[in-house]
């Protein structure tokens, strides 16, 4: 079961990264950039293999809820990749709600394993300038 906190956190991350995209030249979709930042941060903590297994699990769970994600795969280094035959389609970007679903699953796994407080701390490390709102406790700033 995904907590509301994970879903809201996923939305915040995507919104933050989308805003950052406006000020820079983006070469990847917002979702892929969020995942890449998470990958770099979490690989340092859990190793490539550790992160890869988490990302694979999240993608499998997300595909059930968002079939458009079937064109995605997790590579050996844990990064997300669009299957080659679907690349042109992906250029248009995934439905924003599907992006939320995938990221929510990944954050949900982290919540389940290490709890929301530690997850938030890891996110803060990956996005040091972002201000996250802790959705479970109203307006408290993370």
């Amino acid at each position: 079961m995904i907590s509301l906190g994970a879903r809201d956190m996923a939305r915040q991350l995507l919104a933050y990264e989308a805003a950052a995209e406006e000020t820079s030249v983006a070469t990847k979709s917002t979702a892929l950039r969020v995942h890449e930042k998470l990958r770099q941060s979490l690989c340092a903590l859990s190793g490539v293999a550790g992160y890869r297994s988490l990302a694979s699990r999240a993608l499998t769970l997300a595909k059930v809820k968002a079939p458009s994600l079937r064109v995605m795969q997790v590579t050996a280094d844990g990064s997300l990749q669009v299957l080659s035959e679907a690349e042109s389609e992906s250029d248009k970007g995934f439905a924003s709600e599907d992006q939320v679903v995938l990221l929510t699953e990944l954050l949900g796994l982290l919540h389940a394993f290490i709890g929301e407080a530690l997850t938030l701390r890891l996110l803060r490390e990956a996005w040091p300038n972002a201000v996250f709102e802790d959705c479970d406790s109203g307006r408290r700033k993370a």
Partner: protein
Amino acid sequence: MSAQDKVAIKKLPTGVLGLDEIVGGGLPEFSFNIIAGAPGSGKTTLAHQFVFANATPERPALYFTVLGESAIKMLRYQQQYTFFDPAKLPNSIRFINLSQVVLEKDLGAVLAEIIREVEKVNPAVVVVDSFRTMIRKPQGNSGETDLQSFIQQLALFLASWQATTFLVGEYAEDELRDNPVFTVADGLFWLRQTTERNSIVRKLQIMKLRGQASVPGLHTFRITNGGLQAFSRTFGLSGHKSKPPSQRRLSIGIPELDKMMGGGIPEGDSVLVTGASGTGKSVLATQFIAEGIRQGEPGIVAVFEERPQAYADRAGSFGLDLESPQKDGRLLILYLRPLDLSVDETMNEILDAVKRIGAKRLVIDSLAGFEMALSPGFREDFRESLYRMIFALTGIGVTILSTVEVDESFTEFPFSTYSISFLTDDIIRLRYVSIEGQLRKILVIIKMRGGDHSQDIREYEITSKGLVIAGERLKNYQHLITGIPKRLKPLNEKEELSSKPDAESKT
């Protein structure tokens, strides 16, 4: 070299309750340490406690995980302990996974990665967990020399960068010899756990610690919600000075018994009250503690066979108020019944209580109950541990009265089934005797190390005022201590009537 010329080695808190005392005040700063032991023995938790106790944003801790437990799972479990402060992550404590480097490259690359991170972060503490998995990986042709070189370079580098280091590894004891890791290490912490019948016994040994004296031997430890808690074999009293022998006598609250003991129990003595079930050992012990309270001497009662409220209620039935002193902190009744206790942690509990209220008197009621509360594996150590505790407590001036039940025999006169008489300065023996068709009670002072004592065998009764010694010594009987005495001359009717003690007329 004078003391002021010597370098002062800063001692860092271990974060483990009781361990600072065992390692001689704290862990030497910049030392290179190994935590070794079997899986599940608490190695990672010990490392975490040290890290959480010492990491700061200015001098953080780097925790390298290798091929053992995944960092995510480690965080999942470690955050259950009370010492785990999430606010310290990631600024004060950083977890870095080296498994990819270990799998794909060689020890040189691992060393380079550690050096890179250490130079970047400038940590005060570095942990490599599990170090063992790293050196188990086949090193091709590089062999032992490369391994030694790697370890020496790592130790040298981390010490030069002023980091206190822990390498955590699974080791068996037969690997202790000829292992370059252990040779290089400044400190070697060995954690053991063994199964004794249905209980787990955990012990910790500081096998090596350069630069300062640690307490030798095996120390019991327990893993609780707060992490590891260690119990020093010296009960934290190793540095305490013994009090000079006191000439003071402590009243037991039974005037006739005080007289028999030459004015009372010498302060700082260990007294054993021994007798069969129902002879009044606990009553005597209660009177001793209540008299102390009356005289302004705080006391501790360690009970194993009944709950504190029942103990206080029973004292109340003898007119002894143990409720009020408990409320105002002059008395603690410790209920130490839980099974699987180690002797050392039980004694630690008692010692904490003694220090907390400044107790002058301690009652252990009873030694048999104490032993039964222990895990079977610890019962073997019972006498030795008891000796250490009594020695430690009496050394700081606490007077201890312990009770012990003996099987009543009509052919022998045993003092204790525990062969612990050597632990005691004074022994008071209570026993049943068959006199004139009645089962009556007698007491005798068996020994007093502190001086002369009465040789009399006195009859006593348990009355509404507690234990009361009646009349003069029993002169007209032989073989009293067998329990089946023989009258020297027959009583006439008048003498017979007056020979029966009358509690109402006694103090």
